[in-house]
């Protein structure tokens, strides 16, 4: 399983994802500079968190024009696995690879803390290591995580993670993570790479990476 982690100017969770994949899971991984257009040999593309282009204009709005993104789209069309974490999720919605949009948090403040999540689907390549209905804890760290879509019913079956108990950002239907219809593109606001080691307080996130490894 070869992971490719895209680095946009302003990405800041790229090295964190790399560490988990490389050092915790011992899987091959490489960084892909946003101007590269070669995804050869990559099995899973990760769009990491951060502030691509400083979140200027709108989170993810500029990054989607980066040269690598047209390749990422083709990669998705070919059925390749893509995970967008936090800013990566925002980029995926801006790029039209996932439905909906992410607006300002309802409290209009950046929030960094652990939240509880309910695993709604464990039949995606990203979540097979969980059981359906599992309540897990993962950290969020964002200013724009307020997921919105005109008709949430339309994507009811695409919801993978929901905020459980408290909805921190006002996301419609408590949506924290979704997949596309085909099920190979996954976007989530929480940061699984921040909770993949015991020393950091939780290993709940590691199962996402493990599920991906298992999927291939």
């Amino acid at each position: 399983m070869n992971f490719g982690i895209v680095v946009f100017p302003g990405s800041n969770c790229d090295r964190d994802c790399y560490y988990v994949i490389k050092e915790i899971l011992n899987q091959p991984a490489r960084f892909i500079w946003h101007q590269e257009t070669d995804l050869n040999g990559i099995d899973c593309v990760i769009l990491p968190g951060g502030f691509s282009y400083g979140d200027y204009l709108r989170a993810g709005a500029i990054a989607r024009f980066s040269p690598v993104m047209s390749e990422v789209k083709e990669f998705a069309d070919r059925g390749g696995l893509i995970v967008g974490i936090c800013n990566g999720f925002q980029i995926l919605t801006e790029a039209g690879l996932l439905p909906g949009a992410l607006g300002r948090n309802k409290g209009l403040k950046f929030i960094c803390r652990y939240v509880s999540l309910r695993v709604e689907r464990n039949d995606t390549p990203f979540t097979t290591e969980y059981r359906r209905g599992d309540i897990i804890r993962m950290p969020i760290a964002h200013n724009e995580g307020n997921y919105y879509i005109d008709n949430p019913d339309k994507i009811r079956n695409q919801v993978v993670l929901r905020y459980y108990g408290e909805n921190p950002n006002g996301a419609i239907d408590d949506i924290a993570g979704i997949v596309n219809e085909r099920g190979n593109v996954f976007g989530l606001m929480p940061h699984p790479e921040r909770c993949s080691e015991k020393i950091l307080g939780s290993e709940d996130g590691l199962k996402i990476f493990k599920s991906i490894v298992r999927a291939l």
Partner: protein
Amino acid sequence: MRTREELERISMSLEEYELARSYLGREPNDLELGMIAVMWSEHCGYKHSKKILKLFPTSGENVLQGPGENAGIIRLDEELALAMKMESHNHPSAIEPYQGAATGVGGIVRDILAMGARPVALLDSLRFGTLDNPRTRYLFSGVVSGISGYGNCIGVPTIGGELAFEKPYTENPLVNVTCLGLLKGKPKSGKAEGTGNSLILVGASTGRDGIHGATFASLELTSSSIERRPAVQAGDPFMEKLLIEAVLEALEKSDAIIGVQDMGAAGITSSSVEMANRGGVGVEIEVTKVPQREKGMTPEEIMLSESQERMLLCVERGKEEGLRPIFEKWGLNFAIIGQVIPEKMVRIKENGNIVGEIPVDILTEMVPAYDLETKIPENLNRLQTVDSIPEIEDYGDVLLRLLNSPNCSTSKWVYEQYDHMVETNTVSIGTGASIIRVKGKKFLIGVTTDGEGRYCYLDPYIGGIMIVAESARNLICIGAEPLAITDGLNFGNPEDPEVAWYFVETVKGMSECARKLNIPVVGGNVSFYNESENYTVYPTPIVGMVGKIENLETLCTPQFKDEGDVIYILGEPGNLGGTLFIEELTGEAKGKPEIDLELEVKLQRLLLKAIREKLIKSAQDISRGGLAIALAECSIWGNMGIDISIESEKSPEEVLFGEAQPVVIITTDANRERYVEEYFKEVPIRKVGRVIKDRFKISFNRNSIVDLEISLLKNKWNSGIERWMI
């Protein structure tokens, strides 16, 4: 000759101007005078503090770089070193809180970067007026947003800090930011060397922002200060993030970089002058080569601009083009703006014509250093006397009131707005000292910032000792051996003899304690003129301290663990002098704070050893709010209760709310009692009770004086700040 008004505009006295003129041997032109004024400002020149700062102990076996560089550096092991530095951004934050605080973060991060270190953690010490004042809420929320907006974007976690709300800070909030960085190999230096080598400006373009910011920071704030808002710079964290990655990549891939220097206060002037001074050389700068974002800038504007996110590199001649692609990849300017010259001169050219020329020494070594005129404040005796202690009907109520004070309650409202987890190294925050791991290493790093202006206001020498001692104790309590200090000294106008006395005494106290505990000061910052028409800030030293924890197994945490664990108190609680209790209940800081430094040394040594031998299950020192608050915190964090009984000849308020140091609460397994008592026999130790479930029970001389639900304590502790801010 210049008129007084002209000189006032650049915050220079007539005497200093005359002195500069005599050094130069001629009349300086506008550019030269502007450069001299900023380099001679308190902010850049440390002219009122230089002599006193020599009191600090600055050497130690692990010190790789003491004061004098962009940041201090200490050795962590054979391979790794840690860069650390604190800096204030008080004046800008007072008039433009968001940008003031944001650019404070940006500046300190570049100081760390200049040492060749990757910034890995930020901590913020903040002081404001009381939250019942709407302007305080505006400043507080603006500063926190500024730190959050900037720090989060650059991907450096903000893992700690501290916070206090007291009247003297109403018009002069304090914003002291500490940054830590990790580096392998030899630290970089901010020096220029080798005739003909290039000076390269990297990062953002230069505009008219922040001109004379350094001189502005060297003035008292007045009602017209708001007009100086243009002296506050605007930050672009995205640019900073690119700069971090580009500089680190350049340092990794190339050995052509001789020196790296942050460009902060006084812009190109101070960065080029400091680099020349460290290398014992001169520099020549061609201002037209500086990338500008505005048209028609004069040489003076270019040389004094404080536009953010810029750095200056000294690079071997002929190797410049090898570096260019790295900076261009990150979309940054890379402009050769000058070169090293052998004569120790700063020469400014515009289109090849010399427009200014000043010997480096005039701007550095010859900056006037003043002896401070000191005077013991007339009201000191009155301040140190507590005339009446309020009568207490219900100790539980007082405890709840203090827990609900923004000075004691959780600062969650603040730190949840900061990304404190990015980089995935954060092991623990929010309870005492913060802890980060270092990937690939067994050891962990503990870090804390502490300050208590109230103590120093009432007794600066004792206060100075207490701040350093408390910082070290906070590290000891998590099992960390203190390694080094960076400090931020925040005072009023040093030309006021009473302020000067406070400054000198505080530094003496801090130095004394640092010596006794054998912890070197590797750098810091002085901020004077924190006063306005109505208030002078408390003399407020902030200590940032780092320590090393051997491994995960010898890490200790403060929270109570298991039912039945035995609770001990080390040290002698008491003395209401200088306590939050007195300030909260009487509205005035009063009394004489107290510390037993000999006991402190002994206690810290024993405690660290006990923690490393895994003898105890929790440790928490008492500070603001006293024993009762510390016990409550351990209960809240551990979600456990206590049942303790104290026998004392002192009054219950002294024992519960006194802040005499050192006092530490430890717990241990019931079967280790005898061993623990024997272990700590050199210091006062008393067993007071046990950890229980749910309830918080204290009896004093066999009378129950507090009996509360843990959930109630939690509610009060959780809402102290939030009740004002939501």
